[in-house]
């Protein structure tokens, strides 16, 4: 669907040249919800804005269904943009128009006839659940309702791609949830591809199929959301995950353990149902002391975290850890105070 190749964006300020996007390569499949997460200043906003060329890249290609949009003439680009919907953090609705007028706006731009326009507008307003607000002005709506108008407007010209630029970042958690639900629903109903950027891991967890993590103009990690949660490689990714899954274990846990090796085991889905601990104990003659355990839910898949204290011969401990890894679990060795022990590489 979208293929981004060697994308570079440089800005020149008076003093220096800033590289906002540093050789981005990305493939987004048809019908998926792809999330890009990163701290502010990572370049994610610049990246999503290059996809409809609101931002001109310095070099590189953006292919949408095989068509390189960076080389389109202005007229063709405008036609192309009509098939790419976009929603914004601050909604960007026309204050001078009602809900109906706002949704009708892109259709007027595309030159859709009045009768057809009215039919489609009614259907869209119904779709986003604002039928009773159709003649209200944006100033009379809540943030969540405004974003619904934004979504209806973005869908008006039946786009194949929807870009979401921090669409839930100025909403309260409840509205965020309902907007994300709406996005997932329209993806299913309209066979839409959605590219969204956010700085909230919760958004990624709730709706995205795949995710890319951006830092300083680069994509540092990319994969299925569930895999990223289970097995984050970069410290930034880990930080994002920690923002929604509590990895801060109570200190008391680590105060009076028996001096064995502390490990954190994370496991996903199926392995939850295997009797791993008991085989660990039996096979490697270890004492496994469970200090802490909990299960989070990520997109309906159980994601478990266990803190174990393994006592036994050091060699056996290492073998035991490798056994768990062999079963597809993520195992991290912790130092005595519960911090991730970077020194120990098992």
């Amino acid at each position, binding site marked *: 669907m979208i293929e981004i190749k060697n994308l570079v964006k440089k800005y020149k300020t008076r003093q220096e040249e800033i590289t906002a996007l540093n050789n981005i390569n990305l493939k987004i499949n048809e019908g998926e919800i792809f999330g890009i997460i990163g701290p502010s200043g990572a370049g994610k906003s610049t990246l999503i804005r290059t996809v409809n060329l609101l931002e001109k890249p310095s070099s590189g290609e953006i292919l949408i269904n095989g068509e390189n949009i960076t080389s389109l003439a202005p007229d063709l680009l*405008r036609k192309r*943009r009509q098939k790419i919907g976009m929603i914004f953090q601050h909604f960007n609705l026309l204050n001078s128009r009602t809900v109906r007028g706002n949704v009708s706006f892109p259709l007027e731009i595309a030159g859709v006839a009045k009768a057809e326009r009215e039919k489609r507008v009614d259907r869209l307003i119904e779709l986003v659940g604002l039928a009773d607000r159709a003649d209200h002005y944006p100033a009379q709506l809540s943030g969540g309702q405004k974003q619904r108008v934004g979504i209806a407007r973005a869908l008006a010209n039946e786009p194949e791609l929807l870009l979401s630029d921090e669409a839930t970042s100025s909403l309260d958690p409840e509205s965020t949830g309902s907007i994300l639900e709406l996005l997932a629903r329209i993806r299913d109903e309209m066979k839409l591809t959605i590219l969204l950027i956010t700085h909230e891991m919760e958004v990624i967890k709730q709706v995205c199929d795949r995710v890319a993590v951006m830092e300083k103009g680069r994509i540092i990690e990319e994969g299925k959301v569930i895999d990223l949660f289970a097995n984050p490689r970069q410290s930034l990714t880990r930080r994002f995950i920690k923002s929604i899954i509590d990895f801060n274990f109570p200190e008391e846990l680590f105060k009076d353990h028996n001096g064995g090796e502390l490990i954190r085991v994370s496991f996903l889905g199926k392995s939850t149902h295997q009797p791993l601990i008991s085989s660990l104990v039996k096979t490697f003659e270890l004492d496994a002391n469970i200090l802490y355990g909990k299960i989070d839910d990520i997109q309906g898949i159980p994601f478990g975290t266990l803190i174990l204290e393994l006592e036994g011969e050091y060699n056996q401990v290492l073998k035991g850890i490798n056994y768990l890894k062999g079963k597809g679990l993520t195992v991290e060795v912790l130092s005595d105070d519960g911090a991730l022990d970077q020194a120990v590489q098992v």
Partner: protein
Amino acid sequence: MTELLTRLSRYNQLMLAGINETLYMVGFSLLIAVIIGLPLGFLTAITRKGHIMENTPVHKVLDLVINIGRSVPFIILMVAVIPLTRVIVGTSIGTTAAIVPLALAAIPFVGRIVDNALQEVSPGVIEAAQAMGATPLQIVFKVLFSESLPAIILGITLTAINLIGYSAMAGAIGGGGLGDIAIRYGYQRFKVGIMIETVIILVILVQLVQWLGNLLAKRFDHR
């Protein structure tokens, strides 16, 4: 009091003519100023750096023209454009002739007000329109114009009131109008009653214009 009013009523014809002349001068010069000033303001705004038709040289020229036009004192402008007035109207004296300098003074004023009003339109909304594939012309009419309409209406109201003030000076070239009456009868001939009457009429006129402008602006303001 009754006696004063009876004495003043002798000048009713004069007052009516004055009101007529003022409305005629202000109305026409305002119309011309809007017709020319509105596009001038739009061009100035959209050629600004980062706007939809960025063109720095054009923007700088327009910006300078507006500033120069706004810095010439009206009484000097009025005299300075006499040759031009003669070409356009055929004479440089009279009510119609006064319209030329009045319009010339109001054009840059409207231009600046429109330019300012357009800068208040959220860049995000303009960007959203661009993302939908809108042409610059569509953005001008469907986004910039409708979003800034309340501010433009209030600006035109302000211009109208300024013109009522300026039109008092038009007496200097035989333009007539209420201000001229106040100066000739009230100030130069010490007829205080007439001066007060014209001032009261002017106050009512200004109030009326402002009220109308506010009403109209509110009608289009949905923020």
